[in-house]
C-alpha cells in the first residue's frame, strides 16, 4: 500500500528484532472473544486516479454550473489564490497544535496575527485562536457570560440564525440554563426592543443578538446593550457575514462577539469546516474558552510566541475547564488570516462596498419584506417561494432560502443574498422571474 513505507524485508527485520514471527503475534494478548474473525467488509483499496474520478463524479452530481443567491450563514465570496497556496504548505497543513513553541513559531505567529486582526475588526480587546464555527461559538459565549456574571439565564433574539439557536438550545438544555427568545419588529426586521425589556430580568446572564441579523438587517446593537447592561447582563453580538465588518461600525457596546469567518476565503463546502471566533473585553480573558497565543521572549531575548493562559483549558483543568474544546480550526483560521492580509484595510472596505451595491441593486427590483437597513442580504416577499425557486432552477439559478421553514409567520418570504460574485445578468433574470410570481405557479411554470 502506497501510504505504508516499509518493504517486506524491512518488516521481517523489525519483526525479528521484536522476537515475533508475524505482526499478528503482537496482538496475541487480545482476548479471543473480542477478535474480529473475518476481513472488514470494505472494497479493496483503489488508486489515486480512481479516487479523483470518484469524487469528480460526486461533484458532478451537484450544483456546479448554477448561480446561487443563498446566504443565510454561508456566503459565496471569491477566494484569492494565495489562500490555498499558503495552507497547502506542509509546514502548516501537517503540523500539530503548537505546544512545542521552539519549532512552531510559524503557526504561533500567524495565530497571533489572526487574534490581532479579529480584535481590530470587532473592536474587542482579545480574541481566541478560533472555535469550531459560529454556531458552537454562541453557546460557548453564553456559558462564558454565565461564568462572568454568576447568573444562568439567556435571552436570544429570534433574528439570530435559527440553526445557531438550535445548537444553543441543545447546550442550554443539558446545562440547565434557562433559555428564552425575544422577537423582531414585524416591519423593520430589527430587534423588538420592547419584547427584550419585557423579558429581561435580574437572572439574565446574557442577551444574544446578531448583526447583520438573519434577515440581513443591521441591528440596534447600542440600544440592546443599553437594556442588557442596565439589568446587569452581558451583551453577546453574533455575526455570520464577516465581510460586513469591513464597512459596519464594530459593536463596541458588546461584551462578547461570537462569529463565523466563513466569508473570509473559506469554501462553502456543504457547511464546513468553517472557523468561529470569540472576542471579548480584556476583563473577561480568563473566562474565555479555547486556545490563546501570547507574546513573550525566548531565552536569548528574542520575541517569541506561545500558547498561553492554558490553565483555562481541559488538558490542565480537566472538569473545571472553561470548555472541553481541544482541537479548533487552526488551518481554516489561517485561510481567513491570508484572506485578511490579501485584502487588507482598503480591500476589505471596497469588497464590502461592492457587496452593498450588488445587494441593493437586486433588492431594488424586488418587493421587500422588511424596512431595516441591510448589507448584502435581505428578505423579499413572494407568495410561493418554493414555486419561484423551481422556476429559477430551470434557468440554472438557485434562488433564496424560503423562510417558512424556520419562521411559520414568514411563509411568504425568502432570504436572498448578493455578494461581489453575483452577476448582474443573473440578478436581472431572477428579478424577471420574481415579477411573474404571485400568479398561481401552475399557470406560469407548467
Amino acid at each position, binding site marked *: 500500500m502506497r*501510504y*505504508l513505507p*516499509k518493504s517486506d524485508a524491512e518488516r521481517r527485520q523489525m*519483526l525479528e528484532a521484536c*522476537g515475533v514471527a508475524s*505482526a499478528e503475534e*503482537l496482538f496475541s494478548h*487480545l482476548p479471543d472473544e473480542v477478535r474480529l474473525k473475518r476481513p*472488514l467488509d*470494505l472494497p479493496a*483499496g*483503489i488508486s489515486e486516479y480512481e479516487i*479523483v474520478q470518484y*469524487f469528480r463524479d460526486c461533484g*458532478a452530481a*451537484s450544483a456546479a454550473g448554477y448561480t446561487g443567491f*443563498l446566504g443565510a450563514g454561508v456566503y459565496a465570496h471569491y477566494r484569492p489564490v494565495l489562500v490555498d497556496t499558503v495552507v497547502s*504548505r506542509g509546514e*502548516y*497543513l501537517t*503540523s*500539530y497544535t503548537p505546544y*512545542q513553541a521552539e519549532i*512552531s513559531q510559524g*503557526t504561533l505567529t*500567524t495565530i*497571533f*496575527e489572526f487574534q*490581532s486582526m479579529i480584535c481590530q475588526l470587532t473592536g474587542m480587546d482579545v*480574541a481566541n485562536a478560533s472555535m*469550531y*464555527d459560529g454556531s458552537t461559538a454562541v453557546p460557548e459565549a453564553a*456559558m462564558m457570560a454565565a461564568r462572568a456574571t454568576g447568573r444562568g439565564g439567556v435571552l436570544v433574539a429570534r433574528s439570530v440564525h435559527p440553526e445557531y439557536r438550535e445548537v444553543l*438550545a*441543545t*447546550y442550554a438544555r*443539558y446545562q440547565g440554563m434557562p433559555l428564552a427568545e425575544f422577537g423582531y419588529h414585524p416591519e423593520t426586521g430589527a430587534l423588538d426592543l420592547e419584547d427584550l425589556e419585557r423579558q429581561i430580568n435580574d437572572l439574565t446572564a446574557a442577551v444574544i443578538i446578531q448583526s447583520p441579523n438573519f434577515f440581513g438587517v443591521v441591528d440596534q446593537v447600542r440600544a440592546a446593550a443599553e437594556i442588557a447592561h442596565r439589568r446587569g447582563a452581558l451583551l453577546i453580538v453574533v455575526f455570520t457575514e464577516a465581510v460586513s*465588518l469591513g464597512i459596519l*461600525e464594530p459593536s463596541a457596546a458588546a461584551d462578547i462577539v461570537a462569529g463565523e469567518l466563513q466569508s473570509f476565503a473559506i*469554501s462553502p*463546502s456543504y*457547511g464546513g469546516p468553517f*472557523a468561529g471566533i470569540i472576542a471579548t473585553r480584556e476583563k473577561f*480573558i480568563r473566562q474565555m474558552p479555547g486556545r490563546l*497565543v501570547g507574546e513573550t521572549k*525566548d531565552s536569548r531575548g*528574542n520575541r517569541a510566541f506561545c500558547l*498561553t493562559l492554558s490553565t483555562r483549558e481541559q488538558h490542565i483543568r480537566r472538569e473545571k475547564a472553561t470548555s472541553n*474544546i481541544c*482541537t*479548533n*480550526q*487552526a488551518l481554516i483560521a489561517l485561510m481567513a488570516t491570508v484572506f485578511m492580509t490579501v485584502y487588507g484595510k482598503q480591500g476589505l*472596505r471596497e469588497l464590502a*462596498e461592492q457587496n452593498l*451595491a450588488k445587494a*441593493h441593486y437586486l433588492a431594488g427590483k424586488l418587493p421587500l419584506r422588511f424596512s431595516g*437597513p441591510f448589507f448584502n442580504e435581505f428578505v423579499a416577499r413572494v407568495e410561493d417561494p418554493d414555486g419561484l*425557486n423551481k422556476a429559477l432552477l430551470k434557468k440554472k439559478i*438557485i434562488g433564496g432560502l424560503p423562510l417558512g421553514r424556520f419562521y411559520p409567520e414568514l411563509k411568504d418570504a425568502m432570504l436572498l443574498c448578493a455578494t461581489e460574485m453575483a452577476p448582474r445578468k443573473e440578478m436581472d433574470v431572477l428579478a424577471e422571474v420574481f415579477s411573474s410570481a404571485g400568479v398561481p405557479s401552475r399557470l406560469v411554470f407548467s
Partner: protein
Amino acid sequence: MSIQKVRAHISQNEALLFERSSPGKRGYQLPGLDVPPVDPAAALGAENVRVEIEGFPEVSEVEAIRHFTRLSTWNYAIDYGMYPLGSCTMKYNPRVNELVARTEGLAWAHPYQPEALSQGAMEVMARLEAALLEITGMDAVTLQPAAGAHGELTGILLVRACLEKRGNPRKKILIPDSAHGTNPATAAIAGYAVENIRSSERGTLDLAALEQAVTEEVAALMVTNPNTLGVFEENIARVSELLHRKGAMLYMDGANMNALVGITRPGDFGVDVMHLNLHKTFSTPHGGGGPGGGPVAVKKVLEPFLPVPRLKRAGKKWTWNYKRPDSIGRVRAFYGNFGVLVRALAYILAHGGEGLRNATLDAVLNANYLRKKLEPYFDLPYPLPNMHEVVFSDDRQSRRGVRTGDIAKRLIDYGFHPYTVSFPLIVHGALMIEPTETEGKLELDQFADALVSIAAEVESDPDLVKSAPHSTRTSRVDEVTAARRPVVRWKPASTGSQAAG
C-alpha cells in the same frame, strides 16, 4: 553519537504583518462594479458605517506570500519527519485528499441548496457512514460533531437523553485517571459530576474498584481503549457487562482506534457509544490544530437520540430527515465538517478493508520495535504488551536532574518533533511515543538512535540536555511571563515589539 538528520540552514527573519504594513499597499484587485455604487451612509445609516479598520494591515501580494512562506519555515511538520506525539497520531496526510476536497461541486456546495443538487455530497457522507459502521461494529453514526471533544460531548448528551427518557439521567460519569483531559471537561459540560477511577497497578481498569464505583447514580464510564498507555483493556467486555447490569453505559474515547481497525470492533466488545477522531485514525491533516471531525457511533438503543438532521434514503435519492422527536437536537449548524469527511473517505477508499488492517499491523509493529530498541535505556513503568504507542518514564534520567520535558526539547536538536510530554498523568515524567504506521525503518532507527544518544548525554552532560534546544531559531520560550502578563494582540508601539529576530 553525531546528529545525523539535520544541519544548519538559513532561516529568514520576518516582521509581523502590521510592522510590514504601509498605507496604500495592496495585494488585491476587485473586478469592475457592474451595478451602480451605493452610498454606505445612505444605505446603512451614517452611525452604522465605520471610518476605518484601525491598524489593519496593508501589504502587497509579494510581501504577503513571503510573509507566510518565511513563517512556515519556522514550523516542524510531518512532511519534514517523524512526529511521535503519543495519542495525537501524527501520520502522513495523503495529498490526493486535499485535491478531492477541493472538487468544485463539493467545495462550493451550499448547505441550503436543493437536495436534488446535493446528491453527490450526500453520497459521500452516506458512504463514509457505512464504512465507519463496518469498522466500529456499531449500529448508527452521526457525522455532525466538529472534532473529537465535540463528539465526546455529543456522545455523553446521547447517554443523558436516553437515561432521561428512561426516567433518570443519573448524576455521575466515571473516568479513569489515565484519561484525556477532554473526558472530564466534557462530562462537566454535559451536566454530570466526575468521579475519577484509579487505574490498577498494571495501569489498566481496576475491575474491583469499578465494581464498587458503579452504582445507580452512574450514567456511564468513559474509557479509552487501548488506553493512554497503549494497552488494550483486556477486561473490556466484562466492564461492559458490569455497567449494563446497573443500567449504566460504556462510552469509548476512540482516540486510539487506529490500533484496532480490522482487528477488533468496539461494537463487538460492548461499547454503547464512541467517537472517532478523523484526524487521528483517518489521516485528515491536523493543520496546526484543526479542523478535525468527531463522528459519534452508537448502538441501536441510542440511535433515536442522534442529532438532527439524519441522512435517509427515499427511493433513489438521499434526503435529510428532521422529524426525530427524541433527538438531542443540533450540536452544530448544517451537517458537520464536510470537507474533513471527504478526506477521511478518500483515505478509506485508498486503503480498502485489507489495507486499513495492514496499517494497524504496521502501527503496532512500529511501536513495539521502538520499545525493544529503547527499553534498555528508559524505564517502562507498565511493562504490559503495548499496541500503537509506548510510554516510558524519566525515572532514570531525573536522577541526573533531567526531566521528560528536557529530553523532548533535546530531540528537536536531533531533527525530531518531541513525543507527548508528561501524559498520561499516571506515569511520573511520561515519554509517550507513537510512531504511527507511516514511518519507515530508517526514520525509526534514527529516532531510536537519537533517544539513546540523549540518554548518554544525560549521564555525561546533563546541562546540555536541560538547556536544549540549541539549534532552533527560537530558544526556550518563557511561557511563565506570557501567562503572567498576557499580550495576546499586536498594538502599535506596544510591548517593545521589534522586527522578529
